[in-house]
C-alpha cells in the first residue's frame, strides 16, 4: 500500500496539476492568448501610440501628443472622408437592412428548391470581395460599361454614364456594390431568426383578425429585434471599416469623393509613408466602433426573453 503510494508519487503531483482548473485553463488558453495578445492587443495599443507620434517609413518619430488629431481636424480631406464614411455606412446599412429583411421574408415562404436558392443567395458573401469588386469595376467602366449599354439599347439614356468618374455617381456606385455584397449576410441571418418564430403566433393573430401588415409589425418585428440588433451591428461595423471595395474600384477618387477613413488611413500611412498620421486616422475610427458595440450589447441584454430564452 505504502509502496504503491510512493511509486505513484511523481504522477500524483502531475495528476493534481491536471485536475487544477485554473492551471489547465491557463495552459489551454496559452496558444490563442499568446497570438491574440501579441498580434491584436499590442498592435491596438501600438496604433494609439503611433497616432501620437510623427513616425514616417524609415524614420523613427517623436511623441507629438494630440498634434496629429489637431491637424486632422483642420484637414478638409480627412473631414470629407469622415463625411463619406458616415454617408456610406448609413445609406448602405439602411438599404441592406430593408432589402435583406425583405429577401429573408420572401425566403421564409414555401418555395421549391429553397435550399438551392439559399445557397445561391449567399454567393456574393463568400466570393472574395476583391474579385467581385473587379467585376463591378468592369460593370461600372466609363467606356465599356455593360450597364450603360443596356440602358442605351433600351433607349433610357443616350450616352454612357460615367459611373466612377463623377463624385456623386461614384459614391452611389460604391454604395450599390457594398449593398450587393451585404444583402446575403443580412438576409440569411435574419432568415434564421424568422425560422425561430413559432407559426402558431401567426395563426392565432390571423384568427383574431390581424392583417398581414399587423402580423409583421406586431409579431415578426418585435420577435426579430434581438437578431436585428446583432446583425446590424456587425453590418455597420464592417461597412464603417470597409476598405477592399473602395480600394479596388476608386482608390478614394475622384477628387477624394469616395475616400473612407480606412482608405485614407492606408493612403496616408502606407502609400504616403506617414505612419503616424495614418495610425491617427485609424484611431479616430475607434470611438464610433465602440458606440456600435455598446449599442449591440445593450440591444442584446434587454431583449433576450423575447426569443423565449432564459437569462443565463
Amino acid at each position, binding site marked *: 500500500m505504502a509502496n504503491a503510494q510512493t511509486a505513484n508519487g511523481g504522477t500524483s503531483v502531475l495528476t493534481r496539476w491536471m485536475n487544477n482548473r485554473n492551471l489547465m485553463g491557463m495552459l489551454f488558453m496559452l496558444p490563442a492568448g499568446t497570438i491574440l495578445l501579441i498580434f491584436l492587443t499590442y*498592435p491596438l495599443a501600438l496604433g494609439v501610440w503611433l497616432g501620437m507620434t510623427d513616425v514616417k517609413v524609415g524614420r523613427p518619430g517623436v511623441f507629438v501628443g494630440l498634434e496629429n488629431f489637431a491637424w486632422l481636424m483642420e484637414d478638409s480631406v480627412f473631414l470629407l472622408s469622415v463625411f463619406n464614411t458616415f454617408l456610406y455606412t448609413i445609406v448602405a446599412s439602411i438599404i441592406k437592412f430593408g432589402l435583406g429583411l425583405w429577401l429573408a421574408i420572401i425566403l421564409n415562404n414555401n418555395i421549391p428548391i429553397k435550399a438551392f436558392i439559399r445557397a445561391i443567395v449567399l454567393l*456574393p458573401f463568400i466570393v472574395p470581395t476583391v474579385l467581385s469588386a473587379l467585376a463591378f469595376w468592369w460593370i461600372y467602366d466609363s467606356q*465599356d460599361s455593360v450597364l450603360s449599354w443596356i440602358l442605351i439599347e433600351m433607349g433610357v439614356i443616350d450616352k454612357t454614364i460615367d459611373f466612377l468618374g463623377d463624385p456623386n455617381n461614384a459614391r452611389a456606385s460604391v454604395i450599390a456594390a457594398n449593398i*450587393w455584397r451585404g444583402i446575403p449576410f443580412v438576409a440569411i441571418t435574419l432568415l434564421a431568426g424568422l425560422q425561430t418564430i413559432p407559426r402558431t403566433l401567426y395563426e392565432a393573430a390571423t384568427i383574431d383578425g390581424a392583417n398581414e401588415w399587423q402580423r409583421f409589425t406586431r409579431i415578426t418585428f418585435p420577435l426579430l429585434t434581438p437578431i436585428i440588433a446583432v446583425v446590424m451591428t456587425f453590418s455597420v461595423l464592417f461597412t464603417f471599416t470597409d476598405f477592399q471595395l473602395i480600394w479596388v474600384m476608386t482608390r478614394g477618387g475622384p477628387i477624394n469623393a469616395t475616400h473612407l477613413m*480606412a482608405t485614407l488611413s492606408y493612403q496616408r500611412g502606407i502609400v504616403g509613408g506617414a505612419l503616424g498620421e495614418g495610425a491617427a486616422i485609424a484611431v479616430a475610427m475607434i470611438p464610433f466602433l465602440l458606440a456600435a458595440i455598446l449599442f449591440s450589447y445593450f440591444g442584446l441584454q434587454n431583449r433576450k426573453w423575447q426569443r423565449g430564452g432564459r437569462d443565463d
Partner: protein
Amino acid sequence: MTDKRKARAVYDDEGMNYLQTIPRKVVVVYIPLAIFMFVLLFPFYFMGVVSFKSHAELLNYRGLQAFWIYEPTMEHIKHLLFETEYPRWLWNTMLVTVSSTFLSIFCAVCAAYAIERLRFKGSKYVGMSIFLAYLVPPSILFIPLAVMVFKLGVFDSNWALILTYPTILIPFCTWLLMGYFRSIPYELEECALVDGANRFQILTKIVLPLAVPGLISAGIFAFTLSWNEFIYALTFISSAENKTVPVAMITELITFDQYNWGGLMAGALIGSLPVAILYSFFVEHYVSSMTGAVKE
C-alpha cells in the same frame, strides 16, 4: 430528433398556406425573388462571360451581344496560367490560408474548451474579451502590425500573413466552438474523468469527435475569411512572387494603359473557384456558422 423535426415541418408546411392564392404568391414571392436572384448573380454572370470572350468580341456591344459569347475562347485563361505568375499566387494563397486556418482551429479548440468546460477563474471575462476581439477590424490594425511585422523581420514573406490572419480567425472560431462545446453533455466528461482520463484525453477522444460539425463550420469559415483577406496582404507583401491572389490581381494584373478585362475576369473567376467549391459542399455548415455566431 430528426423525425420529430420533419413531422413538425410537414405540419408547419400546411400551416396557413391555403390562404395564399397562386397569383398572389407569384406577385409577392416569385417576382421579387427573381429580381433579387438576377441582381445578386449579375456580376458573376458577367465574370464568366467576359472570361471566355475574345478581345474583339469584348468591344462589341450591339444588341444583346453583351449577354452571350459567340466565339468562346480560352486565351485569357491560357495567358493567365502560363504567361503570368498566377499559379504561384494561387499557391501562396493556398499555403497561407491552409496554415492560418489550421493554426487558428488548434488555438480556438483549446481556448473554447478552456473557457466553456474548464471554467477557470475569470473564464467568463476571457470569453467576453474574445468576443470583443472579434469586433476589432483589420483596418485599424494594419499600420501598427506593419511596423511589427517589419521589426520581426517577416515583412514580405508568407509568415507575415500566417501569423497575422489568426487574429481575425481565432476570435470567430473560438466563439463558434464555444457554442458547440456547450451542447455536449457534461456527463460524458464526468464518466471519462471517473474512468481516469485526463483533460487532454477528454478533449481529443470525447469532445472533439462530438464537435466535428462545429469544427467543419469553423474551418470552412476561417478558410473563406483568410482566402478573402486583402488589407494585410496588401500591406505586408511587396514582391510579386509572394503575393496572394486578391492582392496580385489588383497590383500586378492591372495595367493602366489598356485594361485586359478578359484576363482580369478570368483571374477573378479562378480565384473564386476554391471557396465556391468548398462552399458548395458545405452550404449547411456555412449557414450554421454564419447564423450561429450571430445568434449566441
